[in-house]
């Protein structure tokens, strides 16, 4: 979850989010370079006394200021498209987790790839007085998934459109009734991850949080046994 006054991303909880952060840092570097260049010339243009109003049709400079930004954009596009297709690569997954949005709670069904149901959990938000200060974030039950295990997440809804979001994992999937949206998740560390519904779904849209705990595989199986 976010800390007070935090402006940047949360630390990555999945391998995809790590890549997103790297891509963000790479693009930000380019953006800052271009911004510095523009600001310097903007200030020089404002403080200099004379301008050449007859300067027209500079073919070489027009060529350069067309080609150079195009090259920058190509350089940004390569990792962007690589990531875009990487997150859509659904190869082997060991678990399937069906996420169902309701008004106003989330329910999870954990199954194997052969559709054997392992667990089913409904997660309602805890009221403020029971939430230990974690206002709007804690639920009575939470989803537990093993780390370093590819999980196929299928998001859907029982009534209206919701959106299942976990910013620290870099995933967001709209829960649309009558549709299964597929997400790919591989947790990379043991921690608690929080999220909130991200599509307006009624009066209690702000009060249906998501809690996900990443644990070792044996702890995950122990949790399944307890359920």
């Amino acid at each position, binding site marked *: *979850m976010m*800390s007070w006054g*935090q402006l940047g991303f*949360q*630390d*990555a909880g999945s391998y995809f989010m790590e890549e997103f952060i790297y891509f963000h840092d790479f693009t930000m570097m380019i953006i800052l370079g271009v911004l510095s260049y523009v600001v310097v010339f903007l200030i020089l243009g404002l403080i200099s006394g*004379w301008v050449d*109003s*007859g300067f027209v049709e500079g073919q070489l400079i027009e060529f350069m200021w067309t080609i150079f930004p195009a090259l920058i954009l190509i350089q940004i596009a390569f990792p962007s498209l690589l990531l875009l297709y990487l997150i859509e690569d659904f190869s082997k997954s060991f678990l399937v987790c069906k996420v169902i949005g309701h008004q106003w709670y989330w329910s999870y069904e954990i199954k194997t790839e052969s559709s054997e149901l392992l667990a089913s959990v409904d997660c309602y938000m805890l009221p*403020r007085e029971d939430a*230990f*200060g*974690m*206002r709007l974030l804690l639920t009575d039950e939470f989803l537990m998934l093993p780390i370093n295990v590819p999980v196929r997440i299928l998001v859907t809804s029982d009534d209206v459109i919701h959106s299942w979001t976990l910013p620290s994992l870099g995933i967001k999937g709209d829960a649309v009734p009558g549709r299964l949206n597929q997400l790919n998740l591989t947790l990379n*560390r*043991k*921690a*608690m991850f929080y999220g909130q519904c991200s599509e307006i779904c009624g009066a209690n849209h702000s009060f249906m949080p998501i809690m996900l705990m990443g644990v070792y595989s044996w702890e995950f199986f122990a949790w399944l046994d307890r359920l």
Partner: protein
Amino acid sequence: MASKMALSRSFRLWGRALVVQRRSMGTGPLGYFPSRLDIGKREVVGFGLTGEECYVEDVHSPFPAIRFKEDTAEIAMLREKEKGDWKKLTVPERKELYRASFAQTLTEMEAPTGEWKPILGVTLFLSSLGIWFYLWMRKFVYDDLPETMTNEELVKDQIRFMIEGRTNPVQGLASNYDYEKGQWKK
């Protein structure tokens, strides 16, 4: 009779403002476009900004197409003197000649106008209105901050939750906690 005279006068004035003449430069589609202003007896001395015979003076085109003033007898005399050695012209005479041809010197053209003062003043005034509006919103509209942000005990509970939940262990909060010793890193 009076109305006929008024009509005739207005026609003459209109004619002085927009005399239709064939342009000397060509007979194309703009050949009959009414373009020449009445410049009186002012001498045409060059092309100017666009070729129009009017007084346009700017830092980008400092040489207008026509002189600023009509030549009086005194100016005409100075013009004759100007055809000779310029060292024989006195400074007041040079100034007189300059003022006959130009409305402003370059220094006068570039002199600061002080326009920035009302611009800055109005900008700051409007910004202050925005700030007053924000203060009014804070006092009369917004609710108090929730207890989870103001109550120290609840904030401590949240920090404990965040440490136990390994929140941001790489660069954030949990990265400052020593889990082996069970205390904040020193």
